[in-house]
C-alpha cells in the first residue's frame, strides 16, 4: 500500500492556519484562536499555574484537542511536524500566565527542546519570571534504559497531559507541577509500530518506504525510523512482541496498577485496535498487572500512517485521582 498523496486541503502553505481556524470554529465553546495560539475559551482562574505546550502540527487531534478545562491552557501550533519558534512560545507563555507561573511542556524532540530553551532565555531577558520547562519522553525504542532522558516523546505522554492538567486546576506551585509531570513521565513507557507510511501534506512526499508485508517497530511520531523492520505478524503475535520490552523497561511487575493507551497513528481501524487491546488485556492479566482504565483511539497521529503505539503508565492513588478528574478538551473528555 502506498500513502495517499492527494490530501483534501486548499494550498499546502495555508494548511496550518486553515486547520486552526476550522478547529477553533468547530469547538468555539472550548477554545479560541489567537494567531497560532489555541487557548481556552474561558481562561483558568487567576492564581493557578498555567500549562503550555508547543508542538509541530500534523498530529491532530494532538495537541489542539487537549486545550480545555482540566488540560492545557495554551497550545502553540508549529508548522507540520516542526516545533514552533521561540517568539511564539514566549507569546504562548504570556497568554497562559495567570500569576502563578507557567510550565512549558516539551515532548522531547531536538527541535522542541532547543526552541523551548531559547524561549526560556527570552523570557528571562524580558523579565517574565516564574517560568519553567519539563522535558517529557516515553518511547523505549529511542534509547536504552539508563538513558531515558535521550528518549523521544510519543503518544504515551497522553497520560502526563491528562494528569498534569488536572493537577494544575488545583492550588499547586510551579515546582510541584513540574515534579508531578516528572512523576507521571517516569512511570510511562511506550512502543509504536507501523504497517504503512504516510505522506507529508506539505510536500506530498511519502515519508518513508515500507513493503506491503512488512512492519516497522519503534516508529517515532513523525515517521522516524524505529528499532527495525520485520515481516508483519498477526495481531496477537504483534502484541506478544511489543508488550514484553515495555514491561521490562520500567519494569512493570506483578501487583502494579496501570493505565493503558492504544493510540491509532492514523488509518488503522478501531476494529484492529480493539482486537489488539484484547491481547494486551489477556497478557497483562497473566502478568498480574491490573488495568485501571484503558483508552483506545486516535489521540496523537502521524497523518494517515497505519500503525499504533502501546503505552502503559503505572499509577498510584494520586495519579488515579488525577486521571479520573474531569477534563473537557475537544479530543479528551472525562466526565
Amino acid at each position, binding site marked *: 500500500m502506498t500513502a495517499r498523496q492527494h490530501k483534501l486541503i486548499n494550498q499546502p502553505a495555508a494548511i496550518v492556519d486553515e486547520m486552526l481556524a476550522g478547529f477553533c470554529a468547530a469547538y468555539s465553546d472550548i477554545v479560541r484562536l489567537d494567531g497560532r495560539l489555541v487557548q481556552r475559551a474561558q481562561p483558568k482562574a487567576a492564581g493557578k499555574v498555567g500549562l503550555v505546550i508547543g508542538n*509541530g502540527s500534523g498530529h491532530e487531534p494532538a495537541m489542539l484537542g487537549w486545550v480545555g478545562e482540566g488540560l492545557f491552557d495554551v497550545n502553540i501550533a508549529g*508548522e507540520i511536524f516542526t516545533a514552533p*519558534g521561540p517568539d511564539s512560545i514566549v507569546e504562548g507563555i504570556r497568554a497562559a500566565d495567570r500569576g502563578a507561573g507557567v510550565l512549558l511542556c516539551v515532548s522531547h524532540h531536538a527541535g522542541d527542546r532547543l526552541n523551548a530553551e531559547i524561549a526560556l532565555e527570552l523570557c528571562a531577558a524580558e523579565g517574565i519570571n516564574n517560568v519553567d520547562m519539563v522535558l517529557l519522553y516515553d518511547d523505549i525504542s529511542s534509547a536504552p534504559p539508563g538513558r531515558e532522558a*535521550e528518549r523521544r516523546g510519543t503518544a504515551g505522554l497522553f497520560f502526563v497531559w491528562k494528569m498534569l492538567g488536572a493537577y494544575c486546576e488545583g492550588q499547586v506551585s510551579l515546582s510541584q507541577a513540574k515534579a508531578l509531570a516528572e512523576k507521571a513521565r517516569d512511570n510511562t513507557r511506550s512502543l509504536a509500530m507501523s504497517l504503512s507510511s504516510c505522506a*507529508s501534506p506539505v510536500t506530498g512526499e511519502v515519508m518513508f518506504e515500507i513493503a506491503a508485508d512488512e512492519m516497522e517497530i519503534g516508529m517515532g511520531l513523525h515517521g*522516524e525510523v524505529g528499532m527495525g523492520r520485520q515481516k508483519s505478524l498477526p495481531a496477537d503475535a504483534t502484541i506478544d512482541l511489543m508488550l514484553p520490552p515495555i514491561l521490562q523497561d520500567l519494569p512493570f511487575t506483578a501487583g502494579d496498577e496501570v493505565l493503558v493507551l492504544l493510540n491509532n497513528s492514523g488509518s488503522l481501524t478501531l476494529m484492529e485496535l480493539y482486537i489488539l487491546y484484547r491481547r494486551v488485556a489477556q497478557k497483562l492479566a497473566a502478568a498480574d498487572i491490573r488495568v485501571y482504565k484503558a483508552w483506545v483511539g486516535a489521540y496523537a497521529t502521524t497523518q494517515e500512517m497505519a500503525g499504533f503505539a502501546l503505552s502503559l503508565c503505572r499509577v498510584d492513588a494520586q495519579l488515579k485521582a488525577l486521571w479520573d478528574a474531569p477534563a473537557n478538551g475537544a479530543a479528551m473528555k472525562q466526565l
Partner: protein
Amino acid sequence: MNSIGAEELRGMLMALAARVAEERAALNRLDAALGDGDHGSSISAAFALAAADCAALGEASLQSLWLRTAKMLLNGMGGASGALFGSFFLSGARQLQGVERLEKCQMAALLRAGLEGVMARGKAKVGDKTMVDALAPAVAAFAAADDYSQAWRQAALAARAGAASTRSLVPRQGRAKYLGERAIGIQDPGATTIALLFEAADTWWRNLTDEKT
C-alpha cells in the same frame, strides 16, 4: 574589495536564499532518509522569509541585517535547524554593534561566534554527523586564509569536504540519532546546507568582485 558593508551583506543573504531554494527537494530527500523529510522545505522557506525581510528593510546596518536574519530563521522555521541556524546568526550579532564595514578578520570572528553559538545550543561536536561537521572546518578555513577571496573559497571547499565526511558517520544528535548504524552512507542534510551556503557565498563574492569562479 577588502571589506563588506550593509548593502553587500544584503546581497549575500539574497544569494544564500536563492541557493538553498534551488536545493529544496534534494535536501528534503536527505532528511527523509535521516529525519522527517522537511529540512529543504523549512530551510528554504526560512531563508526566503529572511531575504524578504532584509530586502524590505530600508536603511540597514550590518547588525540589523544579521539580527533580522537570526530572528527570521528562529521564528520563521521552527524545528531543530531553525533554532540552530538562528543561533548561528544571533550569536554574532552583538559583535556588529556600530560596525559599518567588515574586514576579513572581523568576518572570521563573526563566523566563529556563530559556530560557537550553534555548538553551545546544540551540544554537537565535530563527528556527531550534524551541520557542525561542515561549519567547524569552514570557519577554521576562513580564518586561516589571507583575504576574502581566499577565505570564501577555502571555506566553501572545507564545508563541502566536511559535509561529505558525514556520510560515513553515525549520528549522535537530532532526529537521525535514533537510526544509529543505519544512517551510515547518507550525508547529513544540515551539513549539506552549510556547504551550499558557503559555496553560494563564494560564488556571490566572485560575482561581486568580478573574479572568475
